[in-house]
C-alpha cells in the first residue's frame, strides 16, 4: 500500500473536511485515518490515505489539492509517508 499524508492548514471554516474528502472519494483515494488540532487559531488537519487505487497520478492529485486549498483559503499538501517515517522513526 502506498500511504500518503495529506495536510490541510489554514483558517477554520465550514466545510473544509467535506470539500477535501469529496475530492478524495471522487478520485478513489481511501482515507485510513484523520486527526486534527487547532494551533494558535489555525486549523490543522492530517489524513493518512491510500492512493494505490487513485484514478490520478501523484502529481495530478497534488496539483488538484493545491487548487482546492486556494479556493478554501488553506494550504493543502500531499506527501509520501516516507519522509515523516524517516525523520521520526528509527
Amino acid at each position, binding site marked *: 500500500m502506498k500511504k500518503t499524508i495529506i495536510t490541510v492548514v489554514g483558517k477554520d471554516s465550514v466545510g473544509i473536511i467535506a470539500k477535501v474528502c469529496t475530492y478524495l472519494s471522487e478520485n478513489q483515494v481511501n482515507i485510513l485515518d484523520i486527526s486534527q488540532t487547532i494551533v494558535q487559531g489555525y486549523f490543522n488537519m492530517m489524513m493518512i490515505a491510500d492512493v494505490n487505487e487513485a484514478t490520478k497520478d501523484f502529481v495530478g492529485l497534488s496539483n488538484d489539492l493545491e487548487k482546492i486549498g486556494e479556493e478554501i483559503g488553506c494550504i493543502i499538501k500531499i506527501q509520501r509517508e516516507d519522509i515523516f517515517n524517516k525523520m*521520526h522513526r528509527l
Partner: protein
Amino acid sequence: MININEVLETNKMIEKQNLDVRTITLGINLLDCSDSDVNVVAENVYNKITTVAKDLVPTGQMIEKELGIPIVNKRISITPISLVGANACKSPEDYVVIAKALDRAAKKVGVNFIGGYSALVSKGMTKSDEYLIRSIPQAMKETDLICSSINVGSTKTGINMDAVKLLGEIVLETAELTKENDSLGCAKLVILCNAPDDNPFMAGAFHGVTEADAIINVGVSGPGVVKSALESAKGADFGTLCETVKKTAFKITRVGQLVASEASRRLGIPFGIIDLSLAPTPAIGDSIAEIFEVMGLERAGAPGTTAALAMLNDQVKKGGVMASSYVGGLSGAFIPVSEDQGMIDAVKEGALSLEKLEAMTCVCSVGLDMIAIPGDTKATTISGLIADEMAIGMVNQKTTAVRIIPVIGKKVGDIAEFGGLLGYAPIMKVNEFSCDDFVNRGGRIPAPIHSFKN
C-alpha cells in the same frame, strides 16, 4: 503510526525554517571520453553527460513533489578535466573548447552547475594541468555553469607553491575578465587542500578517479532548523545545547538519506555519500551566523565564535553520522560570507575580519569562502592568503579551500552583487603588507611530520 504533531513538525521545518536538500549531485566518470583530437573529446564529453544525466533533473523534481521537500540544486560533478583533456589539449585555448562543451551539456540537461573543471596538482603540475589552470579565466568568461577547482596541497604531499603562486595570478585574471558582473568568475573557482573525491557541493565538486562510473551524492542543509531548535534551548548548558544540535542534525540527515536512496533507485545509479554540511543561504533565518547569535554571541566574529563553531561542527557530524549509511564529502558547517546574511551583517558592523574567518576555518569546513576583497589586491597577496589556508588544511589533516573574489573596481566597504544563492558581499580589508619574496621562491612546502604514519 505517524502522528499529527510529527507531521506538523516536519512541515514547519520545511516551510518556516528553510529545511531543504541542498543538492543531488550526479558524479560522472569521463575518463573514457579521452581522445587525441580536442573536438572529439568535446563531443564525447557532451554525449556522455547528456546521456547519463538526462533524467537527473526530472527525477529530482519528482522526488521533490512526492516528499514535499525542496531539492534546491541538481548538479553534475565530473572527472577532473585536466585528466580527460591531457591527450588532446596542447594549449589553454584547447581546454576552453571542452569548457564550452561542458557548459552546453549542463544547459541541455538543466542542471544548476557542473563541477570538475579541475586539476589535481598537490605535488606537481603536468603540462596538461598547467594549460587547464591557465585556461580558467577565459573558460569562466565564456561559460555560465562551470565550476573550477584546483587541489594544490594535501597532508601527504605538502603544498605545491608553484601552483599557489600561479593561482594568485589566475584568480586576479579571472576577476578582470568577469568584471562586468562583479568578478563573478571567481565565485566559481576554488583552490583546495585535501580535496575529497566525492564532494557534492560547488564550487569544489569533482568526480574523483577513485569513484565508480556514476554515483549519486547528496548534500543536506538546514541551518534554520538548527537555529530554531536552539531557540528552544535558551539559557541551557552546553550539554543540552549539544544534544539539541545532534538530534536536529539526525533528523535533517535522515531526510537527505531518503532523498539519496530514492534518487539512486530511480536513476539506477549507486548511492555514494551524504555530505553532512550545514549550508547557509542568503535567506533570513538560514544562517550559520544566526546560530552563533542564538548560542549567545552578539555577532559572528565575537570572542567565542571559534569555540561555538567547533562545537556546532562536531555535533552536526555526531548527529548526522548515525542517520546515514555512508558519510563523506566535506561534512561540516560552511561559513561563506556572501551566502549568509548574518555573516554579511557581521562584516558590515566590523565584528568579523578576514583573520577571524581564517581562525574559524581551523575548526570547520571549508575555508575562506565567498569573501570579496578589493580589486587592486596584488596577486602575490592572494597567493599568500591561499598558502595560509592550505597550510591549515595540510597540518590539520582536513579539507580547506579558498574562494575569494577580488572585485575589480571596488574597494573596502563597497558591496559586490553575485545574485541568487551566491548572494552579495561587502568588500573586506586585506592585510597589505607584502609577501612577494615568500611567494616568489617557487617549489613545494614539504609534507608535515605527522603525515608519515607508515
